[in-house]
């Protein structure tokens, strides 16, 4: 099984802890400075979402490799209310993001692959993957 580490998100400080974990992992896996910053930003967004909308949850980081390629998966999970309209959340809400490129579309852009699973009343699991180029 692949190496996995995690941070519980309860307070805003945990966002920083999750970022730290993600940056360290990204560095060790071999990502360059800019990609480390991108992965960290994606974690920031996901952790912030948990903190704001689900109250609590966790960020896990998994190192992955496949056919000589190395990468990282961020898994953000919570037992919050779930997302009623996924299509809407994945739409670029340009005006709501105010050009910050934030939210789920932002995470999708920062990473290579993005999957979302959500059940109303049960929670949400988001998996975002990035490979070293």
């Amino acid at each position, binding site marked *: 099984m692949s190496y996995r580490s995690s941070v519980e998100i309860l307070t805003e400080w945990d966002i920083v802890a999750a970022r730290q974990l993600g940056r360290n992992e990204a560095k060790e896996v071999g990502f360059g400075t800019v990609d480390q910053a991108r992965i960290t930003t994606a974690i920031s967004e996901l952790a912030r979402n948990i903190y704001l909308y689900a109250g609590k949850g966790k960020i896990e980081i998994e190192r992955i490799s496949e056919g000589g390629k190395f990468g990282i998966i961020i898994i953000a999970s919570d037992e919050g209310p779930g997302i009623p309209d996924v299509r809407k959340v994945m739409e670029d809400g340009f*005006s709501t993001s105010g050009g910050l490129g934030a939210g789920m579309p932002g995470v999708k852009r920062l990473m290579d692959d993005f999957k979302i699973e959500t059940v109303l009343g049960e929670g949400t699991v988001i998996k975002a993957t990035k490979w070293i180029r």
Partner: protein
Amino acid sequence: MPQEIGRQYKEILRQYVMRQTEQNLYAGQNFSRQLIQKNIAPEDVISIHKVALEEMYPELPMNVWHSFDLLIEMMIRYGLAHAEHQSLIQQQEEMKVEMDLAANVQKTLLKTTVPELSGLEIGLVSVPARKMNGDYIYFLSDNYHNAGVAVADVIGKGIPAALCMSMIKYGMDSLQDATSDPKKVLDIINRIVEKSVNDDMFISMFYGRYNVENSIFTYASAGHEPALFFDAKKGEFSELHAKGLLLGVVPNVTYVQHEVKMETGDFVVMMTDGVTECRTEDGFIEQEIIAELIHSLHEESAQTIVDSVFKELEKMQNFELRDDFTLVIFKKTS
């Protein structure tokens, strides 16, 4: 550039240069969020950085400062793209408001009432891929013996399709008779479409009529997706084939109609190609999967079937509809 920003950034930079912690980087990124919101261009950020660094380390060689001047020059076009983005966002917002309004106008213009006949259940779901729907459903009924439904799809999506749809509506309005034969309906609409639509616009239409007295479903098609017939006794699907030219190609077409006798529990599934051409990353969702899905739901009400099928297919496609999605079921309940 307000001096306050420079002062704040210098403090963040001082902290970070002293201790390279995640918390200081987090502070930096949160600050950059504010800068974007305050419309500070990226070249300004470089300039702020340069000034802060100059104040902290005035002894650095001239070359370093020259290098920053080049970096500012490099950023100017990024800044322009950024400014362009701001105005594009505003346009996008206006467009969104306009499209919402247009979708509303379309809904009012194209509204149709689902007939209520005893012995017949009707289920309908029609979801546009974007704001405006290029699929069109129109019901005709005498509220007693006959229920007719037109399921149409403009080849194309969005606004141009929506404009075309408004034309079909006026054609259908002029019919006002639920007993009209399907072939005759297609005939009339074809003539209207041919007359007023661009040569490069085509519309496919399926027209079906159910008569509760003799339980016969009569149908004709103008180049439309075949309907599915579910035989409850056999527990099997068959396709309701019907040949016919798309609407608007030539002025005079004689459409042919067919009929099928329905027993209790049988139902007809009419749809647009947005249903049959659902696709995931791995390719099209196979027809059989859709048929199996409907099969597994066949004891449910007509509306439950269509709703469940939509939800399932939406999920399979990762919540990205590539085409307008319309599904209508006529189910004989007694």
